[in-house]
Each structure stands twice: as C-alpha cells, then as structure tokens.
C-alpha cells in the first residue's frame, strides 16, 4: 500500500456555514497504480490532489503515506515528505518564466542538496528521455503548450518521486499533445511510478488502470483498491 485515506473531510467556512470540499472520502492506492479521478468542474478533484500532494491540509480523517500518518505530521515533516516522494504536474504548467527549460527542471534538485555534477547528469537524462535536449536553453515563453507541459512533467519527475500527481495535465493542450502526454504517463507507470491524475476526459481517463468518479467532494461509487 502506497497511501491510504480514511474518512477525510475538508471544509471551508463561508458566511458562518461549512461548505464541504471533501466529504467522507476513503481511498487506497497501491504502488504502481495509475488512477484517474473524474468529475465535473468544482467537484473537488484539485482539492483532493492537493491533499494527497500534502500541499493543502484537511480537517478530519487519516492519511497514511507508506504507512506513516501524514495527519499527525508537523509542517516541516510534511514538506520533507512531499519533497522526497511526490511530483506535481499542473494544468497551467506553472513553469518559472525567468528560468530556462534546463533550469526549471533542475530547480527541485536545488532544494534537495544534490551535488552539481549529479544534477547535471540527472537533468541531461531527463532532457534526453523527453526529447527536449534542443530546447534546454529556451525560456518557457518560447515553447508550445505541449512542450511546456513536457517540461512540467520532467520537472515533476526529476526528484524520482514515488507518486506523480497530475491535475488536468492536458487541460490546455490539443488532442495530439494530450495523447503524447498520456502515452508518456503510461510508460512512466509501466516503469513503476504511481500516478494519480484528475481529468475531465473519458479518453484520458482510459489510459489509467482504474477510474474513480467524484461529485461534490464524495465518490459516486465505492472505491475498490
């Protein structure tokens, strides 16, 4: 078991009322899973991914990651865990505009105290693998959306995370670019990376090994591990 959610609740208080973003959520994800989370806009997909990615906290429930109780972690511990084990891909890419492709991919390593020679080797591998060696000195603004998202994925993977979280990774891409990213995900999954993606699209969801449907912060069907 890579991770496990037990009875997660997340709410915000608006005008004195609790608005539930996640309600009574259970989830179990095994090492090597490729899970697609579907649901209409506003159903809580992003919120769930943020909770799983330890970028956001929740109000009630338990979250175990590799058997460790994330709900009991202090901020520092959580940040360390996130940095070591989780990679995140955004719909809006969120590359740093002032850094080149090379530097964007390198950034997570800078925060992990990897030696400079090792960094060079790792980034070179990644560029190679994603076929963007020729673009390494370009800035994000000089790339197409698909290329930017490739860089986004490369950056998420550079730290060799156990879990790759992708929030509508192809939301801003055309269908050919989407297909490329999805095929890449399949490959990564085959190599052992656990992936959870949020998506609107049936086609994209089909690349996963299983699909769960979210509505108003709850599963519409009981998830099976």
């Amino acid at each position, binding site marked *: 078991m890579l991770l496990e959610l037990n009875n997660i609740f997340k709410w915000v208080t608006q005008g004195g009322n609790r608005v539930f973003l996640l309600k009574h959520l259970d989830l179990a994800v095994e090492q090597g899973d490729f899970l697609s989370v579907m649901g209409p806009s506003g159903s809580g997909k992003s919120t769930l991914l943020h909770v799983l990615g330890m970028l956001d906290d929740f109000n009630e429930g338990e979250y175990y990651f590799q058997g460790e109780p994330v709900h009991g972690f202090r901020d520092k511990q959580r940040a360390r865990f996130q940095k070591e084990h989780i990679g995140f891909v*955004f719909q809006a890419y969120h590359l*740093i505009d002032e850094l080149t492709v090379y530097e964007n991919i390198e950034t997570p390593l800078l925060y992990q105290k990897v030696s400079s020679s090792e960094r060079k080797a790792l980034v070179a591998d990644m560029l190679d693998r994603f076929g963007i060696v020729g673009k390494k000195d370009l800035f994000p603004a000089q790339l197409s959306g698909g290329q930017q998202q490739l860089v986004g994925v490369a950056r998420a993977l550079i730290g060799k995370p156990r879990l790759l979280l992708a929030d509508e990774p192809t939301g801003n891409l055309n269908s050919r670019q989407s297909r490329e990213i999805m095929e890449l995900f399949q490959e990564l999954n085959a190599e052992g990376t656990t992936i959870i993606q949020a998506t609107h699209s049936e086609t994209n969801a089909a690349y996963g090994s299983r699909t769960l449907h979210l509505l108003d912060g709850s599963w519409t069907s009981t998830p099976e591990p």
Partner: protein
Amino acid sequence: MIRNYLKIAWRSLMRHKTYTLVKVAGLAVGVACCLLIMLFVRSEWSYDRSHSKSDRLYRAWQDEAFQDQRFVNVITPLILGPTLEADIPEVEHTCRIMSMRPIVSLGANRFTESVLMVDPSFFDLFDFPLLRGNSVEPLAGPGSLVLSESAARKYFGDGQAVGQELEMELGEEPRRFTVSAVVADAPVTSSIQYEMLISYANAGTLIPQQARENWFNVNTETYVLLRDDASLEAASAKFPEMMRRALGEDYPKGGFEIYLQPIADIHLNNTLPAGNEPISDPKYSYILATVGLIILLVACANFVLLSVGHSDSRAREVGVRKVMGAQRAQLVSQFMGEALLVTVLSLLLGLGLALLLLRPFNTLISRDLAYPFDAGFAGFTLLLAVVIAGLAGFYPALVLSRFNPVRVLKGRLLVSGGRGLLRQSLVVGQFAASIALIICALFIGKQIRYFQEKDLGYDREHVVVVPTNMNRQEGTPLAERYRTALLTHSEVAAASVDLYSFAETPWVTLGFTDEQKAYQSFQYNMVGPHFVETMKLHVKEGRAFDPAVTSDLAQGALVNEAFVRHFGISDPVGKKLPGRFPSRIIGVVEDFNYESLHSPVAPLVLTLQPDSMMRYTENVGMAYGPQPRISVRLQGGSLTGQVALLKEVWAAVAPDLDFEHSFLDESVAARYQAEQRTGDIVNIASGLSVFIAVLGLFALVTLSLARRRKEIGIRRVLGAGVGAIVRLISLDYARLILIASAIAFPLAWWFMSDWLRDFAYPIDLAWWVFAIAGLAALSIAWITIGVQSARAALSNPVNSLRTE
C-alpha cells in the same frame, strides 16, 4: 543555488525593464541628491575642525556692560591676548587675528586685499601649511609678509614669490613688505580667511599706544590654545578675577566678562555676532538636511512601493518553488538577496551619479566639497542598503512565502487589506513630501524674488560701482576727475563719489551718549553732493545737498525717516543733530533699504565731509575700508558696451591704475546668497521628488491596471465608455493626492512660517500657493493615471478577456 538566485534576479529585472529602470533610477537619483545635500550640510558642520589642536582651540568673546546696555563682541581689545597668556596658567598660547582691508600695490597694480595681522604663534595654533619660504619664523619681523598661494599667483604668477616686495597702504604712509613664505589657501570651511598675513610686530607703529592697552577699544579676534591637561571650566573660572585686576577702578558696575567659545562652534553659533568672517544661520543646515532626508525617504518609499507592488507577479514563482520543495528560509533568503542586490546596485549608481554631479553642485553652491571616501560614510551606505532592502524585500520574502502554495497558485490570494494600506500610505507619503517641497520651493522662490524686486527706496538697476583703491585724500581728486570725465558722455545719467557705495554695507556705525546717559548708535556715510540724485532717493522734507550752498559742505546733514523717528525730532529741517554732532539737518530722505532686507532700516546720517562727525563720535565701527567709490548710473541698454566706455574713461583719467567694477544689482543680490542657495537646492529637490513620485505612480498604475485588465475588459463589453473607465481609475488616486495635500499643507505652513520669522520683510503665506502646489501634484498624477488608464481602456476588450 546562489547562482540560480542571481540568475533569476537578473532575468526578472531584465524582463521588466521599464519597471526596473524606474525603481533603480528613482533610488539612485534620490541617493545622489541626498548625498550631495548631506555633503554640504556636513561641510557646514565641519568648519574649523581640521586643525589638529581644534579641540583645545577657543576664540575669546566678551560681554561688557556700558551704561545699562550690554555689548557682546567677539572682537576684543588688543591687550586681552597677552593678559590671558600672562595671568591664566591653563592658557598655553594666544593668537590675535586682526582683519584689515588695505590697498596693496605692486608697481601700478593696486588691489584691495584681505590682510590679517597675526601673532607669530599663528602657525603653531593653526594647521595652515607653509608651502615655500621660511617655514620656521615666517612672521619674524614687521616687514615679513606671508602670501596665500592664490595671492602669490595673482601677484607673481608662476614666478618665485618668496623674497619679492609688495607695498601696502597701512596707516598714513605706504609700507614695504618682503614675502617670507607662501601658505596654502585657507579651506572654505575655515573661519579664518586670508590673502596675506603680516606680523603683530606692526601693531606698535600702526595702532597708538593708548589703543593697544585700552580695554574699551576692540580691534581683534583673540584665539586661545589651552594646555593639554587644562579644562575650559578651570580656565574660565579665573577670568573674572583677571578682569577685575586688569581693569581696577575702571571695572564697570555691570561687569566685563570674558568667555571662550570652542573654535568649531564659531561658524554656526549665531547667538554671538560674526567676527572677521561671516557666520551661517544653522537653520539653513537644518532645512537642507531635512530636504535631503525627505528626498531619500521619497526615493526609498518609491523603491519599496514598486517592489511590493510588483511582488504579485512573483507570487506564482513562490508557489511553484514551494511545491518543488523550497523551504521558507530558502525563499526568504532568495527574495531578500534579490532585494539587496537591486538596492546595492541602485546605491552604487546613486553614488556614481553624485560623484558625477559633484562639480556642478559645487558651482551651484560655491563650495569645494570633496567626495567622502571614509569608513563612516561606507558604514552609513551599507546600513541604508540593508534597511531599504529589508523593506523592499519583506513582502515577497516574508509574506508571500508564508502562504499555502495552493492558494498562491490558484490566484486566490486576494489583495489583502494590510498590503493595500501599505501601498496607499507609501503613495500618500511620497506625494505629501513632494507637495510640501513644492510649497516650500515656491515660497522660498517668492521671498528671494521679493528680495530682488522689492522697491528698496533707491534704484539699483544700471548702476556700476568703481572703487579707486586709494585712501580718501589721494582718491577723491581722482574720483572727481573721473566723474567729470564720465558726465561728458551721454550714456552716463549721473554719478556720485562716496566713501561707501550700496555694495559695501553696513556703512559706518557711530555712537554717542545722549542726555539721558543712554548709548545711541546710528549708521553713517560720507557721500558726494549728487548722491541723492544718482541713487534716486526721495527727499521727504527739506532738500538734498546743493553744491552751490557752501555751508552744506561743512555742516549740512541728510537723515532718513528712521533717524527722525528714533530720536523723536519734530520739524527736523534746520535742527541740529542729537549728541555733540554740530551738523544741521537740511533734509529728510524717505527710508531706503541700504542694508539687507534681513533687517529693518536703521537710522542714518549722510554728510559731505566726515570730519565733523568723526570728531564728536564716541565709537566708530567699520566693516569695510573707507575709500572713494564712484557709483555711475547709466542710461540703460547694453551694460557690457557701457562698461567698456567706463573702462576707457578710467584709462584716460588714471592710466597707471587697474579698472575694477561691480554691478550694484548683483552685489545687492549677493546678500541673499544663503536664501538663494537654499532656494536652488529646494527647487531641485522638489523637482526630483515630484519626478520620483511620478515615476513611482506611473509604474504602480501600470501594475494595477495590468491586474485590472479583465475587470476593465468586462466593463467595456458591458458598455462603459473610455471616459467612465479613466474616471473610475483616476478617482481612486485623486483621493490619495487629496489626503497627501491635507498632510503636506500644515507641515509646509509650519516650516515656512518658522523660516520667515527671521526676516524684517517677510512675504505672506498666500493660500493660493498651497492650492497651486496641490493642484500641480493632482494634475501631474492625473495625467500619469489618465494616459495609462486610457490606454488600457482603449485596448480591445476581447484581447484581455481571451487570455484568461
């Protein structure tokens, strides 16, 4: 890691070039301006501190009672120095410095020079370096003469000055002096200024015995060097006893006190009168220091404002980096480092700019300020860098990095109240400072214009003053010949030969004791019979001098209204002058401002001959050496051509003598140099302040419009006109300017009424000046905002909506 930060810092600066330029240039200009002003203020405060013994050097001053009045003077009796040296064990040495302005001649060249007669201890007490010649005993005998470097160059060019001879008109006959040494020019920041130095050994033949030993005859500044181990208190405690002993029966009832003033205190202590050199009102240093600080604050506010305003665009980066695993401390150091980098760059640029502008600034304020390459200054700059960087970097570094990355990335980070308030108060502060400076600049300018344009009661335009550089006996016939020759030319309207022109005031101060045993003083000048007509004075009662009336010469006197008022003379015409002066009043002239407008018109007597006045006066005070001076009134038109004529006529009348001249209006304007200098600096400062504030506002509006692009787009689609949108945006800022005005008005009013308090003829603090300054700021801001928002409003709304 550092390299990565540096790279991103550099690139983000380059990506927003305009914004970076505004930010960096604003701070650099502010720093440069503040630095230059502070250099000036520092030089004002550094007078006389460069002598190695300056902490032991004092100038004596006296507070003497004389018939119910107290006379405070820094000019002291000649006997004070020797008495101090003999009676007070704490005194190591004294040096008397008596200032004279004799005519010095080398062959046919004659100049009026500033000569100091000093005790030979001069070079032991003060650090004025001897450059050439006898450096052991340069003032050994009465014939020794030490020239300043510039005087040596003036008389002897590049040739050898030491060993040469000069003639000086001292006392009755010319004396010959031999140059024994050349001394470096006194720095501008010295209260002791000289062209030439002669020895006190001359006093024996120059000053009558009686005056040399009289305690009631003041002639000289007396400088005192206390012993290393002596305290000022211990020395001062012995002065009363010393004075009682020295004066004996003459000791006045009200006392005759001697005090010592530290040498470094001389220049800015205006509670004591000036000595040989003018002193400064410390007020001006405070005003300028304040202005310098304001400029610096405006520039810093601008820098912080833009940094904070722009940090929104860095928010996403902060979020991304956090997701990538950045710790807060890492983000803090990145953004702080970045702020520090930009700050240091701007400061360096500012320092460079100041270095570049130092020369023109020196010209503007007639100083020779040097760039301060010292540790204190470096420390201050460093501190400044850290403070500014701290303020500028705190928002992205400390605030943004605290947030949950998800919130930052989703853009759900609403413009928080606190930050909006910070930004608004910075804008308000900047504009308040700018408006206050504009108001002060306008009022100071107004006062200076008033000084220059006020009807002085005489006409200072088209008057050229030509000195004879000769004593009265020799100079008067020459001056009269020159006057007669000039009047044959049609360009010359009138001319008058007087002992002092309007360029040399104060004139002579005369004093006497009246019937009530009260000491009275008034101003006096010996003028030619055509003085009234030449200077265009108005005769109120009686008549002006008439060359045809011979009795005018011996005992006619003109007085001014102030004189009549002060001495309470009714029906003055025909009355004798008060006191023992035998002259009779033949006419009363309307008050005219012969002195500077800093002081009200003092009682004045004019006569054609000095003898009757000089014989009966109890006291004579002179700031300038008496010599016949010709005031020439020209018809107008091109002055330069007419000066050539004056020179030509001079050459015909006095072929051996150099022609000197000055324009009266310029000499009069020079009296307001302190005001003029302050005015110039405040003008420039207010201009810069407005400039920086506008730059900041411009950048800020641009940023806020970028943020409101979508809103503007939607409003346009919904049918709002460009005008409505510009109004919407402008009103926001107009409110801020109004608040700024509300803060600036009372501040400027307070500042200016304080400044004007010391003037005898102050201008009114007219309300419309405030209104103009407020409106100027408002319209400048409005133009800035209007142009920007109109551009935003005019752009196709679909563009801004599509990008979302």
